[in-house]
């Protein structure tokens, strides 16, 4: 579903991501962890086609993001860290715009918009202009928009920011159900508890390189430390020297 093939991205002379090779199969929930400036955002931007790799290729469902961006986007849903909406559209109008953009037939769009409004409990405010929404309401709407076309791949950048506990539960349940049904999720997060609870595999990036890739259990084995606490393992890995992996 998602494939990073020897991907390198530099900002001027400075490497942000170095030789990243990663393959995420269908139905997996993958969490990308790492300290600030590790290259997580660059990786996400390359995955959604906002940034092109300096070397290598990123593919979604076999489509190269550089050469076949539109086809790749057709299979992708994206929830950015800061929700982007049109102030002068209502929530429902925004969902219709997204449905139209994905070429959904009218009857199907109506049905799916209704479904997402129900899932994310948007009914109360979805006919108001989005300029009046709180951050949490905006984030829920963006989730609804990202899932509207039943994407094969869902890319989440710090997905829980701004959401209240109930919305967090809704999102978690939804992610669980949909990954079980075949959707692949690529999530960047700082919330270790979330990664521990939800992710099938985690990747830990440090200074642009993937220092660890595997399950949480594998991480514990890998680090061979007395502690089993993910926070301690993470801190040990991210503060250690380059050959710690």
């Amino acid at each position, binding site marked *: 579903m998602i494939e990073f093939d020897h991907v390198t*991205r*530099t*900002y*001027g002379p*400075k490497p942000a991501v170095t030789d990243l090779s990663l393959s995420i*199969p*269908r*139905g*997996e929930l993958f969490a990308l962890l790492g300290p600030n400036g590790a290259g997580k955002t660059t990786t996400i*931007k390359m995955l*959604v*086609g*906002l*940034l*092109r790799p300096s070397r290598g290729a990123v593919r979604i*469902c076999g489509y190269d993001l550089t050469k076949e*961006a*539109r*086809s790749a*986007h*057709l*299979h*992708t849903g*994206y929830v*950015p860290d*800061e929700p*982007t909406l*049109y102030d*002068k*559209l*209502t929530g429902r*109008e925004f969902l219709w*715009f*997204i449905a*139209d*953009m*994905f*070429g*959904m*037939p009218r009857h*199907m769009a109506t049905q*799916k918009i209704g479904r997402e409004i129900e899932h994310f409990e948007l009914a109360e405010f979805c006919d108001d*202009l989005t300029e009046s929404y709180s951050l949490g309401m905006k984030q829920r709407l963006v989730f609804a928009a990202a899932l509207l*076309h*039943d*994407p*094969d791949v869902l890319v989440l950048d710090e997905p829980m920011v701004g959401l209240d506990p109930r919305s967090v539960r809704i999102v978690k349940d939804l992610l669980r*159900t*949909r*990954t*079980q*049904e*075949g*959707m692949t999720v690529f999530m960047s997060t700082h919330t270790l508890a979330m990664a521990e609870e939800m992710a*099938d595999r985690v990747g830990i990036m440090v200074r642009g390189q993937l220092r660890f890739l595997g399950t949480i259990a594998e991480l514990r084995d890998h680090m061979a430390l007395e502690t089993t606490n993910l926070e301690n393992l993470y801190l040990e890995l991210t503060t250690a020297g380059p050959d710690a992996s």
Partner: protein
Amino acid sequence: MTGTSWWGRSGRGPQSESCRLLSVDAESRVFSRLRGTIAWETLRSMLSGARLRLALVVLLSAVFWGSLYALFYEGFSFLESIHAEVISLLFNAFFSSLMIMLVFSTAILLYGNMYCSTEAKLLLTLPARAENIFAHKFHEAMWFSSWGFILLGSPMLVAYGVVRGSPWTYYLLLLPFMVSFVVIPATLGAICCMAAVAWLGSLRMHALAILGVVVCAGAAWLGWSMFGSSPAGGGTTEWFEQVLARLSIAEQKFLPSWWLSSGLLDAAQNSTRPETRFASLLESVKFLAVLVSNGMLLQLLARWLARSCYRQGFSQLVGEMPARRQRRIAWTDEFLSAAGTARGRPLRLLLVKDLRLFRRDIAQWSQFVIFFGLLGLYFFNLRVFNYNVAYASMISFLNLAVAGLILSTFTTRFVYPMISLEGRRFWILGLLPVHRDQILWSKFLFSFFGGLLPCCALLYLSDSMLGISHSLIWVHEICCVVLCMGLSGIAVGLGARMPDLRESSPAKIAAGFGGTLCLVLSSLFIMAVVVIAATPTHLAMATRAFGGGGPPPTGILGWASGPQGTAASLLLVGFLGVIATFLPLELGLRAFRRLEP
């Protein structure tokens, strides 16, 4: 993890059933619907929540249009009677300079819309064609950059048609001509913008700066050669002929401005013979066809460029390293921080912070430089015209009003939103050992001193060029100080009294009810100051002109037109300034002390 998919079957994915890539036309229709819905919702919000602003905009636009129409009507009537051939030259000069401005304004707008906006980030992650995203953003940019042309050009062209007694077909062709003309420079601007981002990389700012310097130098040379270096002096027939000869540089047949001018002039032909009228109309339609076909060709080129390099350019821009700031502290900041007593230090530090933000916000200082620069250029050329004393005095007071109005747009656009924006960061200031009053006073001082220097200097320039007496220069300078004080007081006071703490865009804050009220009050204040200050001088001139060399007037008229009258008017101006400064400030201070962000 894998297996039967959640949509009830295994296989490639749900897209084959529920999603598909749209055709070019279908995608364009989706974008059109988006623009239509946004426009409708914006209009609805304005009608329900910002009626005052909408009414003011409509009213002021109507007044502006009407005044321009009257001005152009008089001008064309005069030219038609003595120099009919000049009109073609003027049209060419006007449209060619407008063309250059449209290229730049569209390029700048598109740069912001296509590469720096959050909307662009959203659209680029959707399965939309790059060329359609470009077309969508181009529509917006073209509208924003060309409405001024329509507002300015339509009264001129309608007035010309009326003076010439043009047939109805002329008026019918006006809009198609204007729109098809605007598309050409706007598309050229778009092409320059996309090419610069994609191929010039980080050198684009340097290239833009060099281009800007070249264009400014060209404009300055043209301005100087027309108005500055004329041995004949301004206003004479010889000077006029020299100016016309130099304006003929704009009459180039390969320029779209020439096609527009020629097409309009042909359409405006009013012949009594039907066959001549038809021939002119046909000729005009031919020019329209040339404009339309060239616009379409350029659009094709721009769409091809967008398809080839928009995503690449966006990626390149996102991937650029932000420039590192020097750690060195500017001397002005150092001076302001260190000078004065320890008690006033917090106030000065707040001032330094605002000064730093101003320096680093290109939108603020570039507009400041452009508007005051243009005003300076106009003032500098005033000496060419040999005005008599009364006319020079009137112009000088009008210039005072113009400087005040420009300053009021800055105080409304940039100073008024400052408190609202501070409100969003209130936790920073709220935790500092700074009295809230000091925050407001620092904004006032920033605005006052920021406007004082350029306005006083510009008015001195204007008065020197007009050959105004020293006493009147002093009157203007005092008025200027009062205006800077009052306008700053109104903007800061109302900004604190009516803050919008939820909004992060200063433009939107300024466009709200409070911002509109600020602009209206500022304009009324400027008018009051200028009228009060100008009355004694012009009363004196009027009594001299109508007195016919008789004895000077006595009584109230003599008093009002003498030095006592000037002193009294200045006192009244000062009093008005104090009211305009301290009343809103006091209201603002009270509200700001109670503010709970």
